[in-house]
């Protein structure tokens, strides 16, 4: 692997999303001399993609979504170029841009992100049909949903439910088409999926399960008029939101010798097949994925870890990418979701599951464990915050399900005074497994105990 501690090297990062920016920041932390340039056509400054929905909903303005003040970049000598790259000239180590003069690089980091899927639906290119991934998509959505009487969302995943929530914030009626038996049922176990489904309906979203889009109909002026489902139902609408996943954004790579499959192929060090060219974030595909991880991971957190790791590799001795226990989170309308470790939607022996749901049906907790060794494999929670550090440590050392259930006080990350579920979960565990547990509480002594601390 090339090292960058020689003087006067120029490292160029294409993409100012979480991966590219994290990489740039960490390189700068380690090396104060190297020249770093970040190119993006999307926005001048780094903003949080995950917050796009909140701009539409009026919770924030665009400037609120920028994690660093504008003077941050100059102060840290991170040179920003606001332009689209049109061509990568590998032989001459040069990038051609739409407006600006070409930029030469010594090391190139591709952090190109994703683009939303449209598949082959008839009518997918009509005005009013779109996904939501980048800032331009948000602007489109703003324009496309003006005077919208009804919107249809296709695809029961994270982007789909986000778009539904966005539209509902402006009181636009939403029909939500989900192919699976329950919402996000290819990821969530049925109980959790059903819980979210109920909440979606509580928000007056017309949730249609096991419903597949057939085609999108033109109104004669190139705009969407309605959608037709595979069962033949016509749903009139002026907006169609596509939430059917994203794919690596690799069109820029197509005519280069950089090897791609679904994404840009990288080894454990994020190196591509071309010397001095690296790729991180949504746009990569692992040649050898880490244990129990898919080949393409398009998650905020993995993008950030890619950036951290590559920055370290470029400034120190190379280490292979080695993510810790899996974790993720999301928010389905008002219900927060967190997961640590691995909880697939279905499992088989010797895996066993414990599930508890609050009587009101909006809070739940699931733990998946090995029925023989009792080792915890993963947890899901809805409407109930869990402590990342606790589960990171526990999963790494192979803690048991009993340990978790009896020390939930430590594992909980709920706000102070929040309803305490631990007793209920403990009782539910006892009645499901027949195992009697006692909650482990730290003993408090002296003055602190007096104050209830």
């Amino acid at each position: 692997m090339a090292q960058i501690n020689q003087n006067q090297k120029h490292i160029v990062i294409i993409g100012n999303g979480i991966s590219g920016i994290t990489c740039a920041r960490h390189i700068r932390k380690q090396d104060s001399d190297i020249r770093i340039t970040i190119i993006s056509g999307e926005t001048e400054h780094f903003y949080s993609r995950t917050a796009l929905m909140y701009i539409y909903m009026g919770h924030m303005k665009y400037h609120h979504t920028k994690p660093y003040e504008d003077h941050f970049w100059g102060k840290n000598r991170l040179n920003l170029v606001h332009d689209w790259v049109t061509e990568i000239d590998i032989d001459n180590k040069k990038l051609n841009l739409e407006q600006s003069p070409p930029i030469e690089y010594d090391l190139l980091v591709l952090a190109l992100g994703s683009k939303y899927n449209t598949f082959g639906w008839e009518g997918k290119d009509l005005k009013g049909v779109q996904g939501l991934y980048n800032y331009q998509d948000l602007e489109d959505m703003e324009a496309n949903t003006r005077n919208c009487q009804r919107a249809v969302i296709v695809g029961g995943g994270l982007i789909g439910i986000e778009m539904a929530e966005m539209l509902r914030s402006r009181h636009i009626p939403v029909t939500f088409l989900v192919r699976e038996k329950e919402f996000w049922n290819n990821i969530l176990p049925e109980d959790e999926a059903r819980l979210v489904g109920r909440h979606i309906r509580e928000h007056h979203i017309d949730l249609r399960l096991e419903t597949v889009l057939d085609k999108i109909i033109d109104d004669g002026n190139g705009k969407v008029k309605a959608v037709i489902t595979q069962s033949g139902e016509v749903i009139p609408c002026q907006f169609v939101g596509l939430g059917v996943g994203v794919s690596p954004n690799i069109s820029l790579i197509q005519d280069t010798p950089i090897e791609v499959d679904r994404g840009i192929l990288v080894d454990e060090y994020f190196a591509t097949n071309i010397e001095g060219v690296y790729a991180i974030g949504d746009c990569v595909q692992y040649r050898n994925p880490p244990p129990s991880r898919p080949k393409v991971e398009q998650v905020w957190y993995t993008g950030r870890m890619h950036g951290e790791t590559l920055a370290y590799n470029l400034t120190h001795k190379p280490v292979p990418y080695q993510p810790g226990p899996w974790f993720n989170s999301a928010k389905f309308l008002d219900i927060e979701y967190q997961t640590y470790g691995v909880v697939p939607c279905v499992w088989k022996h010797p895996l066993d599951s414990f599930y508890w749901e609050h009587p009101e049906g909006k809070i739940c907790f699931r733990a998946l464990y090995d029925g023989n060794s009792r080792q915890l494999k993963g947890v899901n929670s809805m409407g109930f915050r869990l402590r990342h550090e606790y589960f990171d440590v526990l999963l790494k050392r192979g803690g048991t399900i009993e340990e978790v259930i009896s020390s939930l006080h430590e594992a909980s990350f709920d706000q102070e005074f929040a309803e305490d579920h631990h007793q209920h979960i403990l009782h539910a565990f006892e009645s499901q497994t027949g195992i009697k547990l006692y909650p482990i509480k730290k003993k408090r002594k002296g003055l602190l105990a007096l104050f209830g601390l």
Partner: protein
Amino acid sequence: MKNIQKLGLSLFFLALLIFNVILCLGTFQLTEERLEEIAKDEHLEVLRKELRPMFGVKYTNSFAFVYNFNNYLDGYNDLQKDEQNWDRVIWDDYTLAAARVSSDGFVANNRLVLLFMTLFMGSFGALIYILPLYRGEPKGIKHNGLMLSSNKRRGIIGITVGIYLILIYILLYWYPAYIVNWVLITDPISRKISGGPASQWFMYGVIYTLAILVMGIRMFRKYWGNRYQMLRTASVMFFQLSFAFLLPEILMLFNQPYHNFINIWPLDYTFFFDYRIDDMLSSGAIGMLMLISGILLIVIGVPLMTYFYGKRWYCSWVCGCGGLAETAGDPYRHLSDKSVKSWKIERWMVHSVLVFAVVMTAFTIVNYFTGYEWLGHSTDMLHEWYGFLIGAAFAGVVGVGFYPFMGNRVWCRYGCPLAAYLGIVQRFKSRFRITTNGGQCISCGNCSTYCEMGIDVRWYAQRGQNIVRASCVGCGVCSSVCPRGVLKLENGNEEGRISDMPIIIGNKSVTIKNQ
């Protein structure tokens, strides 16, 4: 909007209209007997002579009355000043008292009715607007469309509200005689509670308390189901109503000094002033209780409570200024500036005020014990300047008037000396922190946006770092609005409270060891 809400809003605006129109109503007539009621014996002779032209003249509004009154009196005072007859100058301000005693006619004769048609009807209208809010919606964060609201994003409505509040505060602090009619209509409440007539401060207290109660109920609606938010809102409502509003009035009823037990020095900057000390010392056991509890709070209560719970125990659970900010000011909380620059300004300003307050108090106490031999009456000038700049202009006019411009905690953030004191304890010796949940932050910015103290919470959260900041009042809103459950207000071990992890949890490739 539901029809009942429209009705509520209409009632509120009608009440507001009447409230403002009242200022132009009523008749004012000064007579010799009325002057005798309010004038001190030593001034009576002069006042009678100077104000004679006004006796029996009927003024149809307070403005003309006050204008004339000041004219006659200023003429006399200027003359004395020119001739250096300092002891003959009438330093007491009789304007409000004179306007009060001279008022008769519509407002004075219909106090109770007008009280109902303004403050009570306004509160009632606001409540029937507020109560149906979010009905039928599931519990959750209610910020939809907030950034599009003219009131909440420094639009025309917001600017108007700000200017209106600023004007009211200017009148209240420096020209109370012009708002004598507002004072008059709160008389019926004052007479019920303390038996005496209302002062402008009583009138202010009534409106202030109503604002906290009504907007507190709005907080319940907004954060329904969020126990932390509901409890602390209930707490500020309780402390405002009982300790800050009712108890001092009840003390007055029993001829005790006016005292607010939860207003702690140096926020209560007059606590060690000679007249307060004399008052307390001459009021027996209750006076001693006031003095001792006040000192104990400063010396032991504040550090101890802040050590255990952070400054939030006071700022967002007890304090009156905090109470108004957290209830009436809540719609403006996102308007605070989050830049590093504003943080720098904040640190300089708030600590300068603290130094000012401490120095002033030290001089005052020294002066008191040396029997005014050492500094004479020069501390009076310090008191006057502090009262004018910090007590009135900063805490009042800017503190509340700037809600719609710079957020609801302008005073608490840049000016409150007690907040500065609490903050120093919180920063350096406390168990309180906001814990960041490992690597779960997505840098969305909701926490920073809704931080009323202008803390860039996200800066810490996205680095996996706990938030330990002197200014944090522990309102908990960052934690409530976080979509990924990343933030938790906690009191815990001091060990590990301030963390600086180079790599966030979740990535095993790079650890602290091989950094």
